[in-house]
């Protein structure tokens, strides 16, 4: 690895000050993407600003009708949180399927959301639950956050502090996982809140997206059969050696049906 400086601020304002003052600096959360990227020399930051020593960033709380998960909460924290399991069990199920145990012991929700990897699991839940990304300076609705392949509306020196999930009446997540790394080849999250349903798809396209046609059908009848005949176009979907666009388009319907079934079971 090319050498870099390492800073461990104790507060978010201190982290922000370092991020502003130290040129070519990057935030380090769990490092599950950033460290391999640095090792491959795809990124060469002059300094890392570690967020691990800011305890309040890991809190998981209920605030009114929302579940608030701190940006530095690890996947394992979400899996094992009694609050998550009682309020939005789908999120614990989703987090339990990320990577492998060692990755879940380091990787964080904030890191995953900020990176916006097209095959990451969390963006589907953030978009389907209509969550708010809370940063050190503003609140960004999910619909305005994920802007493209590995792109978000975060400013270069902006720090995610938590994700605020409105608690749905029910939600489900299903993914067709890569057998080697368990990322989502296609993952679909379905959430029902009041009379509204949101369907968000990850893995299939360059960025997480919603499927309005499925949402309308599920608002009329919330069961897998309601969307069985809804096919999405393969035109802008990802194609690679693991799955071509046609196959991914097919998987969206299959996984959406499974996600609805999971939601009905309360997963």
């Amino acid at each position: 690895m090319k050498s870099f400086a390492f800073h461990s601020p104790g507060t978010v304002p201190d982290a922000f000050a370092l991020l502003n003052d130290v040129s070519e600096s990057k935030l380090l959360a769990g490092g599950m993407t950033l460290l391999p990227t640095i090792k491959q020399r795809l990124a060469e930051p002059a300094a890392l600003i570690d967020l691990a020593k800011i305890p309040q960033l890991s809190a998981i709380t209920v605030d009114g009708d929302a579940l608030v998960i701190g940006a530095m909460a690890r996947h394992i924290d979400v899996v094992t949180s009694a609050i998550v399991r009682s309020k939005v069990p789908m999120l614990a199920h989703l987090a339990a399927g990320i990577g492998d145990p060692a990755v879940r012991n380091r990787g964080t929700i904030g890191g995953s959301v900020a990176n916006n990897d097209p095959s990451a699991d969390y963006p589907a839940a953030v978009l389907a639950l209509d969550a708010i990304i809370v940063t050190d300076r503003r609140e960004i609705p999910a619909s305005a956050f994920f802007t493209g392949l590995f792109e978000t509306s975060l400013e270069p020196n902006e720090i995610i502090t938590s994700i605020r999930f409105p608690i749905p009446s029910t939600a489900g997540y299903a993914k067709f996982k890569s057998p080697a790394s368990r990322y989502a080849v296609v993952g679909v999250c379905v959430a029902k809140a009041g009379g509204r349903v949101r369907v968000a798809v990850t893995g299939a396209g360059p960025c997480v997206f919603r499927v309005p046609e499925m949402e309308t059908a599920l608002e009329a009848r919330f069961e897998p059969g309601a969307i069985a005949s809804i096919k999405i176009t393969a035109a802008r979907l990802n194609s690679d050696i693991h799955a071509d666009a046609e196959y991914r388009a097919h998987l969206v319907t299959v996984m959406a049906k499974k996600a609805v079934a999971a939601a009905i079971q309360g997963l």
Partner: protein
Amino acid sequence: MIIKFTLNGRSRKVDVEPATPVTDLLRETLNLTGTHVGCDTSQCGACTVLFNGDAVKSCTLLAPSLDGAALTTIEGLSGSSGSNRLHPMQEAFHENHGLQCGFCTPGMVMTAVALVTRNPAPTEAEVRHGLEGNLCRCTGYQNIVASVMAGAVAMNEPAIGE
């Protein structure tokens, strides 16, 4: 930079370059070569150690992150008082022939210890799921799973002697 941490129960103070993976710190600086480097890309799990009790891949953990933490490597599992007695999980791998070439074994054992600590009576399916991040290129998984199942029972037995 100077980091202070607990390594296998002993306090350590080490001067490290920040851009040092824990694998390099252990193997090159501290001469603890039981932690193996397989893929060096956090796929294979041969470098698994316990970081504050959690199994993590030390090739994808920076040495500065150890500051203030407790680290256990494969060397720290066996008799802490200088005896050569193996940890019950190591003993179970021995008894059940849970290795072929042995390269993945330190990581398998560390992951297994963390798994059983979190879930004292895992099912076979839970063991297989729990070992997803550890690869055995000899493909000797059958005996590895048998070893972890036996090790889980042994870890829950009250210690004899000492």
